[in-house]
């Protein structure tokens, strides 16, 4: 009996009582507790993680911003894009130019990158008005190749095939994230960047979460579910689709800008089809049309190669030294990447987010299993 009551009790806490409940972001005590825990983790993580682990987490955070962006377009608006790598590249080169060459401060080069991404998105977006599904996927694939060609050949801005050093400053007022020093504790560069990157991840996640609760966000989802029905209800298809491209590509550009600044170098090879596919894999594995899904996916996709790398000498059949028989770590990673995509799509098409939701429902409805 007590068990049942307790079950009811926790269900009650999640019950909607008035309209404000439906719009509240952190409605239940659990969520508020989660927020506090997240904040604590954010503050103390750089103190406990090793420098190498911080590198992985930093790259994952950058990827998370880009993946949240792609999710706006693919997950919420239902437009398939293999062109995300190009938008990331546009942001990275903008950061290199505006932050490095012109030496403008952090907020300005981030904003310029976002603006550049938005512009590129606004130019590409109209393609989606005439093309759907597979056609759109292939035209955005063409975009990646054309973009890469531009990065390789526009020498005066992009440095061509040699790539470009990025010297964009990462100071926000008196705080320099590259040499963060708080109360006598000097953080490493990776530790400082952790605060910048994951702070931005939280900001972007909040922004997109709110966007999806707005009129525009609901229009995105209506277009995804059935665009002709959305048009009949008065959603302006052209504007909505283009806006989705704009939001998505400006977030991608922010991620690209951070990537360039963190890596201190950009190279046209990086912004190819494979990068686009990685981002699509992140949202597939994380879970489409959720906010935390892409973050989980980004952590997962970024961490797996490093885990494989660290354990490669313990995995049988993997060659760690040149000349040793067996498959290379690179080949194993590529194959595993493919297997993960296929496996998730076949067995868990809603991604890691669905696993989490299932665990949560299990405990919420305990002791009833349905």
């Amino acid at each position, binding site marked *: 009996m007590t068990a049942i009551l307790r079950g009811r009790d926790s269900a009650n806490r999640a019950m909607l009582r008035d309209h404000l409940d439906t719009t509240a972001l952190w409605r239940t005590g659990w969520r508020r507790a989660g927020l506090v825990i997240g904040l604590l983790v954010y503050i103390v993580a750089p103190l406990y993680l090793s420098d190498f682990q911080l590198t992985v987490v930093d790259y994952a955070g950058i990827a998370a911003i880009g993946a949240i962006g792609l999710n706006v377009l693919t997950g919420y608006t239902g437009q398939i894009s293999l062109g995300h790598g190009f938008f990331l590249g546009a942001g990275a080169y903008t950061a290199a130019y505006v932050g490095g060459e012109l030496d403008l401060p952090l907020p300005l080069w981030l904003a310029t990158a976002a603006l550049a991404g938005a512009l590129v998105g606004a130019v590409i977006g109209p393609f989606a008005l005439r093309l759907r599904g597979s056609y759109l996927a292939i035209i955005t*694939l063409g975009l990646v190749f054309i973009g890469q*060609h531009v990065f390789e050949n526009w020498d005066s801005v992009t440095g061509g095939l040699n790539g470009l050093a990025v010297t964009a400053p990462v100071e926000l007022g008196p705080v320099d994230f590259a040499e963060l020093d708080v109360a006598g504790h000097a953080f490493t560069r990776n530790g400082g960047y952790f605060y910048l990157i994951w702070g931005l991840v939280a900001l972007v996640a909040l922004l997109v979460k709110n966007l999806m609760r707005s009129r525009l966000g609901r229009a995105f989802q209506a277009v995804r579910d059935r665009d002709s029905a959305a048009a009949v209800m008065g959603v302006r298809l052209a504007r909505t689709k283009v806006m989705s491209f704009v939001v998505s590509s400006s977030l991608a550009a922010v991620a690209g800008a951070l990537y360039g600044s963190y890596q201190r170098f950009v190279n046209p090879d990086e912004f190819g089809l494979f990068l686009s596919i990685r981002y699509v894999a992140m949202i597939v594995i994380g879970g489409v049309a959720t906010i935390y899904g892409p973050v989980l996916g980004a952590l997962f996709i970024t961490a797996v190669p490093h885990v494989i790398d660290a354990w490669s000498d313990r995995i049988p059949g993997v060659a760690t030294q040149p000349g040793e028989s067996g498959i290379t770590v690179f*080949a194993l990673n590529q*194959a595993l990447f493919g297997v993960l995509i*296929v496996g998730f799509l076949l067995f868990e098409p809603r991604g890691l987010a669905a696993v989490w939701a299932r665990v949560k429902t299990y405990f919420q409805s305990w002791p009833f299993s349905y």
Partner: protein
Amino acid sequence: MNNFLQYCFGGSALGARYALVALGFVVIHRATGVINFAQGSIVALGAYFTFNAHQTWGLPFVVAVGIAVLGAAAVGVLIERFILRRMAGEPVFSVIMLTIGLLFVIDQVVTMVWGQDAQNLGDPWGIDTVTAGEIVMAVEDLWSIGLAFAVVAAFFVFFHYSGTGLAMRAVAIDEEAAMARGISVRRVVAVAWGISGAVAAIAGVTLASGPAALRPSVGLIALAAFPAMILGGLDSPFGAVVGGFIIGITQTLTAGYQPTHASWLGEDFQAVTPYVVMIVILMLRPYGLFGTKEVERL
């Protein structure tokens, strides 16, 4: 002028190879509405099957190609049976991603089995050439063009006169109506994947022929065959061939003239011309040159 004709011939040969790869896409797309991004890796697989049968087992080249065609067809059928069939009813996006995942897996399997190094396919054409007027034609190029036409002719006969071909067209038009007429959709889809694999093997042989041209990356050309397929329209075999030739000829003409006449477009611009042509054509005709327009039902 001679240069121009020479470029056009080279472009046609390249276009024929694109067309063969694109035909593989079209067969599957017609029957199932899926774009198989893993086609490129099946192309590579077909080429390596031929290599294995000819060079390792020492079988005659024609027999080796036959074995490769059957092998690649079997791979196609198996992929459909065990993986794609489970994706029925899933959104286009998921199916595309699934085939991309397969691409990564098959590519690594090919590398694992046959290694990274470039190999000789051991085709009988070698580096022989035929000269007609001022134009020098490689025998392997002539074979590629011939094979592309032979395959598209076979397609025409198959789709118009054979029972299975007619059934396949019926399924492409309306799956449920075809089922109601007693057509086994499963069988039709399996046959489509089989044919696609077989065509992929032929494409692989034409791509990997010549000295040391067989590399695991041989399937990458499938990416440039996308524009060919899109150009002709996703569901038209004839369109795939026309698209292939347009893309191939544009590409070699660009390679020939762009460096001297429009050098500001940058080095290696011919690599992106297929995509530029594709985007321009799609802006004018969103369903390609010969594709059927999708009817929007409310």
